[in-house]
Structures are given as structure tokens and as C-alpha cells.
């Protein structure tokens, strides 16, 4: 049977539906997004985003606010299942957003991305549920600050976050099988773009 369900959370009907929910629920608090924003962020056709948002609003999971001609969508924080749904989305689809927040403002980071099994499932590759999140950090940051950010994120994500910190040269030279494997595999951007 062919399934379009997201590998990280196959409870949802489709990967697009999960991406739209994630984009709405993982946005910084109080930041509404237009239908066009959601379409861009999720790589989904505007018509599909509109239909999904209509369903979510009818179910009381999101709410809309009109500012001028723009309809801004936010999670409905009064919904009885808001905390549960947010937790589900954060733990499954949220690592990139959570780590981006945790790493924001830390000096010395040129780029950061998630690799490994979580990145593969996020990109739609089938397989076992990821046991942890593998984070690649490129630059010359304070290693202790990176580990502290990972520890802070682990609680929210409910799984270990393992950081690999490399200088720009170490990453571009890729003198180990491990780095070649990482570079060949899927990467999900967290900070900037990995070169």
C-alpha cells in the first residue's frame, strides 16, 4: 500500500499536512503566518494550504486573524489539546526549529544542520524511528556553549542531541569516511547553509 504519511509521525494523513501543522505550531509564539508564508515554508501549493488551514480552523486547532487583506494563522493556544499536539509536533518534527532557537546568538557558528537518521526520516526516507538527533556544527564556537544548548534542547525533544563540532577546514577537507557519509546523506538546515 502506498503511503504519503510522514515517516516521523505517520499519524497524519500526509507529509504536507504534517509540515503545515509543524510550521504553524513551531513558529515563535505570537508570530502569525499568512497562507503564502505557509505555502513557501512547506513547499506546498497555496490551494492545499488553504484547504488544510480551513480543516484545522474548523477543528479548533488554529485561529486566523485578518490584518488588512492578509489572513494570519496561529495555533489556538486555548484548544484543549494544544499542549499535547505541540508536544507531539515538537518531539517528532521540531528538532530543527528547537535547535535553531537554542543556537541563536551563539558566536562562532558558520552553519549548523541535522544529519543522520532524523534528517533521513524528515526528508521522507523510511526506516526506524530515530533514537537521537545528530547535529553538525561548523565554525569555531565555544564547545561548552554548544553542548549546553544541546542539553537544553534534549528535554524539549525527548531524545539525546549529539553535536559534532568541526572547523570549516575539517568539514571541507572531509578526510574521514564518517564525514563523507554525512556529506552524502540528507542534511536539514538549522543555522545558515552548510557549504
Amino acid at each position, binding site marked *: 500500500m502506498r503511503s504519503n504519511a510522514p515517516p516521523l509521525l505517520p499519524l497524519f494523513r500526509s507529509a504536507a499536512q504534517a509540515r503545515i501543522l509543524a510550521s504553524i505550531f513551531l513558529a515563535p509564539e505570537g508570530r502569525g503566518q499568512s497562507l503564502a508564508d505557509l505555502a513557501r515554508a512547506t513547499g506546498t501549493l497555496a490551494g492545499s494550504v488553504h484547504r488544510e488551514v480551513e480543516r484545522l480552523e474548523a477543528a479548533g486547532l488554529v485561529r486566523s486573524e485578518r490584518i488588512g487583506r492578509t489572513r494570519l494563522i496561529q495555533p489556538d493556544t486555548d484548544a484543549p489539546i494544544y499542549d499535547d499536539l505541540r508536544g507531539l509536533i515538537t518531539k517528532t518534527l521540531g528538532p530543527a526549529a528547537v535547535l535553531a532557537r537554542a543556537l541563536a546568538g551563539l558566536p562562532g557558528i558558520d552553519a549548523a544542520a541535522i*544529519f*543522520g*537518521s532524523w534528517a533521513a526520516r524528515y526528508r521522507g526516507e523510511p526506516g526506524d524511528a530515530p533514537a537521537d538527533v*545528530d547535529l553538525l556544527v561548523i565554525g*569555531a564556537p565555544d*564547545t*561548552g556553549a554548544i*553542548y549546553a544548548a544541546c*542539553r537544553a534542547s534534549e528535554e524539549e525533544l525527548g531524545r*539525546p542531541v*549529539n553535536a*559534532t*563540532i*568541526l*572547523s570549516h577546514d*575539517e568539514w571541507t577537507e572531509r*578526510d*574521514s*569516511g*564518517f*564525514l563523507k*557519509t*554525512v556529506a552524502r546523506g540528507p542534511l536539514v538546515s538549522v543555522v545558515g547553509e552548510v557549504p
Partner: protein
Amino acid sequence: MSLEALARAGRIVSADAGDVAAHELLERAKRLESVALYAEAALGSGPHAAHVRELDRMRRTRNRVEYDEWGGFGAAEIRADLERARAIVAAVEASWPTSS
């Protein structure tokens, strides 16, 4: 090649890099495991909780490098972790009961 030498050389260590012979890695892992268990017991929680957390992270990294295709680390991590390891050893030594 010692970890210090690797750090000086700025090399990346990974499960398949071939920098360290497999049997040497295994022996080192066994020694590290014993030291780690003792250090964890000696430091416990309280003021040394941060040391225990660091030790656990380093042990996790070691396990991933040895057994997981997604394990590796950079020279800056090795240098910083050597300092952390020295601080942990110093804390363990300070916690040893002195004979009177």
C-alpha cells in the same frame, strides 16, 4: 596515536578512519568504561553534577564513534574534552579518601 597527538595533528577520528587500530580502540574503551564508572560513582551529584554530565556526553560520543556510522568529532572537541577530562580526574582525585 594518542588523543593528544590527534588533537595536535588536527585529525578527525571516526569509526572507519583507520587512525587507531581496532584492538587498541577496544582496549582503550574498556579502560575508559572502568574509569567512567568509578568517576560517576565518586562524583555523584551535587557540586560535581556538571562533571558527571560531561563524562556521560564524552562516553556517549565514544560509543557513537565506535559503534555508530554517525559518530565522529573534530579537533576542537578533542582539545576541549581533554581539558574537561583533566578537570574530572582532578575532581575524582580530590574526592579520594586520604589515609591518616
